[in-house]
C-alpha cells in the first residue's frame, strides 16, 4: 500500500487509497452482467471518499449479486440468502463508526428477506443498500422473482409469470421511517455513480433499487428499457441526483420532483408505464437506530463494575 509507515495509525493523513485498495478477487460474473458496473462504481466512490478499507464492510446475502464482497478489498460478510440486512444492522449496532454497504438481489431482499427489508427501513441504520434488481433469480438459474414482469417465462413458470410483480418502490415508501429511496440503471454509469454517492452521503438507511441487466436469464426486461429510454422517467431537482446536461439528454422523459415530497414520490412510483430514475424520497431528519443501539459502547471498566454492583444489590438479601 501506498504511503504506509510502521505505525500508520499516527500517520493517517499520508494514507492514500487507490482503486487497487478496494479491489478483491477477480469478478466472476458473466460478461455483460450489470453487476460489474455497480462494483466499479462502488470502488470508485470508496476511492473518491477515501474510505479506510479496514473500516469498510461489504455485507451481502446469497445470489450472483451477493458475490460483491468477494471482489472488494475491504472487510466483507457473505452470509445467508435473504439475511444480509440483520447482519449489517448488527455490525452497525455497537460500531456505528464502520462504513457498511449492503449488496442484495431482488430475490434476496424482496422475497426471502422481505421481513428484514421492511424492518431495516424502520430501524433506519446508517448504511448504503444496493438492490441488484434483475427481475430474476440469477444464481439458481432463472426462477421467477418478486419483480419478474407478469407473463415473463422462467423455469418455475414456463408459460409465464402468473402474478403481478411487487413494486419495491411503493412498498419501501410505505414503511415508516423511510429516509432515502432512489432508483437507477446499471447501464448509465454516471447516474449510477451520482445516485450511489448521494445514498452514501445520506445519514440513514439508503435503499437504491438498481435495475440491472442479466444478459443470460432476463435480457429482455432490461433490453426493453435500454432500447426504449422513453419508458424511463428522469427525476430532476436541486436536492435530487446531480446530473450533467449531456446525461440529461439521454432521457427523453423528465420531470421535476422534490425528493422531500412523499405523496408525489408515491404517485411517481405507482406509475406502471414509466420507470422512474432518480431520487424519489429523501428525509435526512429521521432518527437512526444506531445512535440508540450504540449508547454506552464506550463505557469504561470502572463504570461498568459500579453499574454491575448496583444491579446485583437490587437482588441482595
Amino acid at each position, binding site marked *: 500500500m501506498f504511503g504506509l509507515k510502521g505505525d500508520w495509525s499516527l500517520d493517517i493523513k499520508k494514507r492514500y487509497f487507490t482503486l487497487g485498495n478496494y479491489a478483491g478477487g477477480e469478478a466472476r460474473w458473466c460478461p455483460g452482467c450489470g453487476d460489474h458496473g455497480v462494483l466499479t462504481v462502488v470502488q470508485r466512490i470508496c476511492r473518491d471518499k477515501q474510505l479506510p478499507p*479496514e473500516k469498510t464492510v461489504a455485507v451481502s446475502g446469497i445470489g450472483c449479486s451477493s458475490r460483491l464482497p468477494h471482489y472488494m478489498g475491504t472487510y466483507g460478510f457473505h452470509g445467508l440468502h435473504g439475511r444480509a440486512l440483520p447482519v449489517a444492522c*448488527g455490525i452497525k449496532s455497537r*460500531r456505528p463508526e464502520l462504513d457498511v454497504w449492503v449488496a442484495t438481489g431482488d430475490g434476496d431482499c424482496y422475497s426471502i428477506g422481505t421481513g428484514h427489508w421492511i424492518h431495516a427501513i424502520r430501524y433506519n441504520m446508517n448504511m448504503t443498500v444496493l438492490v441488484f434488481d434483475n427481475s430474476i433469480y440469477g444464481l439458481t438459474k432463472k426462477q421467477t422473482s418478486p419483480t419478474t414482469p407478469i407473463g415473463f417465462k422462467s423455469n418455475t413458470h414456463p408459460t409465464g409469470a402468473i402474478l403481478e410483480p411487487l413494486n419495491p418502490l411503493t412498498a419501501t415508501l410505505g414503511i415508516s421511517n423511510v429516509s432515502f429511496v432512489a432508483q437507477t440503471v446499471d447501464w448509465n454509469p454516471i447516474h449510477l455513480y451520482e445516485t450511489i454517492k448521494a445514498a452514501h452521503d445520506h445519514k440513514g438507511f439508503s435503499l437504491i433499487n438498481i435495475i440491472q441487466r442479466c444478459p443470460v436469464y432476463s435480457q429482455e426486461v432490461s433490453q426493453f428499457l435500454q432500447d426504449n429510454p422513453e419508458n424511463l422517467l428522469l427525476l430532476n431537482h436541486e436536492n435530487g441526483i446531480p446530473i450533467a446536461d449531456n446525461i440529461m439528454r439521454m432521457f427523453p422523459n423528465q420531470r421535476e420532483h422534490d425528493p422531500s415530497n412523499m405523496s408525489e414520490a408515491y404517485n411517481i412510483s405507482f406509475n406502471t408505464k414509466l420507470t422512474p430514475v432518480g431520487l424519489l424520497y429523501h428525509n435526512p431528519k429521521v432518527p437512526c437506530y444506531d445512535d440508540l443501539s450504540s449508547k454506552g459502547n464506550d463505557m469504561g471498566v470502572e463504570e461498568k463494575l459500579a453499574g*454491575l454492583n448496583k444491579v446485583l444489590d437490587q437482588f*441482595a438479601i
Partner: protein
Amino acid sequence: MNKPSEETITQKPAKRIDEHIVEIVSDSGEGAQKAGQTFGNISAKMGNGVWTVEIIPAEIKPPARSPAGASGIRIRLGSHYMTNMGDAADLVVALNEQVLYSRIATDAYKPGTIVLLENKWLTDPNPKIREQYTTSVAEFRENGLIVHELPMEVECLKLTPRPRLGKNMFVLGMLSYIYSRDLEKANTEIHNTFIRKGEKVISLNQDLLKAGYEFAATNLEYHYEIPAWERDTDERLIVTNGNQGLGLGVMLSGMELVAMYPITPATSASHYLADVYDQVGGFVHQAEDEIAAIGFAIGSSYAGKTACTITSGPGLALKTEFMGLAVMAEIPLVICVVQRGGPSTGLPTKVEQGDLLASLYGAQGDAPKIVIAAATIEECVHFVIMARRLAEAFRTPVILLTDANLGTGVQPYPRPEPKAEWLASPIDQSPWNKEIPPYDWDEETGLSSRPIVGQPGGEYVLTGLAHTTNSKVAYDRESNQYSCNMRSRKLASLYSTLKPPIVHGDQEGDMLVVGWGSTLGAIEEAVDKLRAEKHKVSSVHLRFLSPLEPGLEEIFSNFKKVITIEINYSDDVNFPLIDKSNRRYAQLAMMLRAQTLVDIDCWSNVHGQPMQPGLIYNILSQHLETMKGAN
C-alpha cells in the same frame, strides 16, 4: 372477630419443622405470585433455604374460577439449601376451590395437606357456584385434604372496599403468622413493592398484612418455626430466578448486546435486561423475528462485540441456518435456550429438556458447536460468563441450555462479585499481520485467531461457503475436508481441557443416575434418600454436552446399571411394538449410548413438570427392585 393483644399472638408456641412446601393459588390477577415472592424473599432474608416456582395459568384470559386459570406460586422453604420444588405441598392458600383441581391433577397435594380456602363462595348469589363450592369442599375432604374455610374476603372488606386487590397481602399476613415470619421485614418488602404508588397504598397493604397476621393468630392452630439454615460462610447472597440469572450473566460477561424476539419462557430474561442494561452500557435489540435476532447478534460478534441471543425451542429451530453459518465462518456467539415443551408450539409455559439434540445437530451438514447446560440458578449466571469466553477462545457459537424450571424458579445463592477479567476485553484495532490468513488453523487444536473489522491489513471476506485458510471460496474436496477437520478439532481440544464429572455418592454401586440441566436438585435429593436406605445408588450430572465430559466410560463401568433421568420423550420399554431394537431413547441417553457403547437405560416423561424427587425416588426404587429380581 376480636382483635388479639400482642401477647396472645406471641404466646402460642411455634412447632419446629425442618421444611414446608406452601402454595398460594387463585385466579390470575389476584396477586398470588406477588404475595408468594414476597414470602419467599422474607424467608430467604431470615436465612432459610428457599425455592419458589410460579404456577402459570394454561391460558392467557381463562374464565374466573376455572381449573385452567390456576395461577399462583409454590414456595419450598426449610432449614437447608433448597434445590428443587419438592413433592406434595404441606399447606395451600386458595382463593377459590376450582383452581385447586388443576393442582390436584398434577399430584401437588397429598392426604393431610392443609387447605386454607376463601369461603365467600358459600354465600355467592349464584346457586351454581354455591353448589360447586360445597361439593368440591366435600370432595377435597374425602380425599384427605384438611380444608379450613376462611372468611378472607369479609376480613379484607373491613379495610378496603376492593378486597380483590388487597387479599394477597392478607394472605401474606396469614402465612407470616403461620411460619413466624418477621413482620418488620414484611412491612419493608411491602414498602419497597408499592413505593411508586404512594404512602396511602403502602399503609393499606401493611394494614392488610397485619390483619391477616392477627386473623391467623386468633383463628388458626398452625404456628411453625423453620430455623435458619446454618451456613458455614458469611458470603453475601442474592435471590433471583434463572432468567434474571441469565441477564446478570450477560452483564457480568461484558456482552453489550442481546438481540432477541419474544418467546415464552425466555422473554423475561430480556425484560430484566431491558430494565437495567443501560446501567452497564448495554442494549437489548428486539428484532423482527428470531432469524433476524441471531443475524443481528452475529453481525455484532463479527464486528468484534460478541453478542448473545436468547430464545426457546421454536426460536432455536428458526435460528438453525444462522447457527450453521456461525459454525462455518467461526463467529463467536452465545445462544441461550430456555427450553419449553415441544414439538411445535407445544407447552409454552412448561418445562422440557427436548432441545438437546436439536442444539447439537440442528444445522446443515456437520456443524460442531459447544453445548453446555446450567443445572442451578447460580449456574445460569456463571455459565453465560463461561459461554462468552468459550465462544471467543474457540471462535464458535456456544449454546447454553436452561429450561422453564430454572427460568422461573427463584433461589438465593452467593452474590457474584463482578470482576474486570469477566468483562469482554476491548476490541483489538492494531494492524493485522497480512501474512497471517484469517483462518490460520493450528492443526493440533483447530484454533485460529480472527481479524476484527477495523484492523488494517486484516481485510477478509467472511463466507458461509466452503473456504480455505484465506477465506477464499473453495469447492475442492481437500479444502472442505480440511476445514471440517479443523472445526471439529476444536471440540476435541476443548474436551482435552475438561475434567471428569464428580460422582455424587460412591464411585461404584448398583445404579448410577445420569442427568443434565435443571433436574440436578431433584435427582440428588432422590439419590440421597435411597442412599439413606442403604441402596447403592449414585448420580452424576453433566454440564458439558458437546463435547461430552471425559471419563464417562470409566465411571459407568463401576455400576451395574446406568440410567438417565430426563424431561423429554422416550419410548417406554413396555409400550406395544417397542423392543430394544427400535426403542427411542431419551436424548442424553441416546448420546451416551452412542459415545460410550454402554447399554444405558433411560426414564423420562413429557409431563411439562419439573422433575420431583419423590417421583424419581419411586422410579429408581422400582428399577432397584427389578434388578434384585433379576439377580
